[in-house]
């Protein structure tokens, strides 16, 4: 028998792309990440990072919360660019920021399993979001130096900021 339960932690998949100016370099950062959304006691939606984990933001709607989270993430990249004198140290710190995890990763996996068990379906407003497969979109970040002579720019490199919910069926 499948027990019906309420989903308190809502697993979110995020995709973000930035071009960041550093001290003598231009970096392109593309992130395929994870986060949790949760309605807290203050009646706000909170978005807690999973990858990257060290970040949180709030809003009155999930759209506002995502936009504030997105802006906070960009500001963090600005801070890292300010603090690092070379592309290599910038890249290392962005990767550390992205991959340094915490217990929210287990909550994300637990919420995904709950959705996949069939016990729950994402409620509104999450039910209106696009659905993507976590297996076909693994959690990862790429930090690429863009100001290289051999770098070729093509329109297909462009990535739209998105947030989505994981599909109920494994890919």
């Amino acid at each position: 028998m499948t027990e019906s339960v309420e989903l308190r932690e809502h697993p979110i998949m995020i995709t973000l792309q930035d071009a960041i100016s550093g001290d003598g370099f231009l970096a392109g950062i593309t992130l395929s990440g994870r986060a949790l959304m949760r309605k807290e006691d203050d009646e706000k939606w909170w978005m807690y990072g999973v990858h990257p984990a060290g970040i949180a933001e709030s809003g009155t709607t999930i759209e506002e919360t995502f936009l504030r989270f997105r802006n906070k993430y960009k500001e963090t990249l600005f801070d890292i660019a300010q603090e690092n004198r070379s592309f290599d140290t910038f890249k290392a710190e962005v990767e550390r920021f992205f991959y340094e995890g915490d217990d929210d990763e287990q909550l994300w996996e637990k919420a995904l399993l709950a959705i996949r068990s069939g016990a729950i379906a994402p409620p509104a407003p999450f039910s209106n979001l696009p659905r993507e497969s976590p297996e076909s979109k693994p959690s990862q970040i790429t930090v690429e130096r863009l100001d290289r002579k051999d770098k070729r720019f093509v329109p297909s490199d462009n990535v739209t900021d998105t947030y989505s919910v994981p599909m109920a069926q494994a890919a």
Partner: protein
Amino acid sequence: MSASVAYTDVERMLRECAKGFTVRLANHSRVVTYNKKVYRTLPKFDKIEIGHIRKMVRHLEINKDCVEKHGVI
């Protein structure tokens, strides 16, 4: 329950519950280090929303029982 607390109370909690922590100001945020981990997104405001503190405590693996005694989460 208040949705935010004074930063001075957060720092008091860190002094007791996260001995050896460091905090510095970046352009956009406070950067807190503890337990060989870094939390680089704590707001620079005088009042900090509790959600930020909850996340920082989880991320830096600060003793939750100790934190709760300070009433900051």
